[in-house]
């Protein structure tokens, strides 16, 4: 039964086999393009989400005469610590560079390099989150009580959540590659993970400027 099925499908004819695989690759290629478009639309929707909060922050900031604002008792809130933020930013940007190297390693069939750079990215991502937790803990302001604190914790908290999701995403990709889910020519999940990680890096560029440098 199995032999007749193989024979009927032309499995021993090299041209038929080639044609069938070309069909599969063509189908995968089309599916990949749709997935990529969908993923980019997701990133655009995230850009819109962050933009809304950033516009709200800019509005709040311009609606008071002094910044950092003066709270009850006539005390002006301190500026955020730019030195530590600069260091923590470099940690996150460094993770973007290592993720790029990881993807390049995969494209060049260097599996060892892929895993090494992926682990470096995950470690740097966790390092950034630890740095943010340390900063939250040492700040003199809180979520309640001032527009500055509310905007800061909302935006950086939302970004931190994205970084956390990204770390989980990268861990899942690591397990999937170890399980052989992706091949040399079919690795859309890795591309999506890389794009997502670069995206959270770039969002931080905007937040770093808005909260620490402006």
């Amino acid at each position: 039964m199995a032999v007749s099925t193989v024979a009927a499908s032309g499995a021993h004819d090299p041209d038929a086999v080639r044609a069938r695989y070309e069909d599969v690759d063509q189908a995968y290629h089309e599916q990949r393009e749709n997935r990529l478009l969908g993923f980019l639309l997701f990133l655009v929707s995230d850009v819109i989400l962050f933009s809304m909060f950033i516009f709200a922050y800019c509005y709040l900031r311009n609606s008071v005469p002094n910044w950092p604002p003066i709270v009850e008792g006539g005390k002006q809130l301190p500026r955020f610590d730019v030195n530590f933020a600069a260091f923590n930013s470099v940690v996150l940007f460094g993770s973007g560079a290592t993720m790029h190297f990881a993807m390049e390693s995969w494209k060049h069939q260097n599996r060892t390099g892929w895993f090494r750079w992926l682990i470096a990215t995950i470690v740097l991502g966790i390092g950034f989150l630890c740095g943010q937790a340390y900063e939250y803990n040492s700040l003199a302001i809180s979520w309640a009580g001032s527009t500055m604190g509310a905007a800061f914790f909302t935006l950086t908290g939302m970004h931190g959540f994205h970084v956390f999701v990204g770390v989980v995403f990268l861990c899942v990709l690591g397990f999937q590659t170890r399980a052989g889910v992706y091949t040399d020519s079919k690795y859309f999940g890795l591309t999506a993970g890389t794009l997502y990680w670069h995206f959270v890096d770039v969002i931080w560029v905007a937040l770093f400027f808005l909260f620490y440098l402006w």
Partner: protein
Amino acid sequence: MNAALIERGLALIGALVVGVTTSVQLRNDWKTTGIENTVTKLLLALMAFGCILVLLAVFGVLGGG
């Protein structure tokens, strides 16, 4: 040596290393085409811009660092 100086020193070294690395990668990928590569190039360029912001912060040009 105080903590702020160490943080600034590490940020300076990190920003230089990451900025140069990102710029080199961007130059290597410059001729690649397709939406995926274009988005990656855009994101790498913005990351390099982020490194420039960190350098400006370290030298006290922005943010009063």
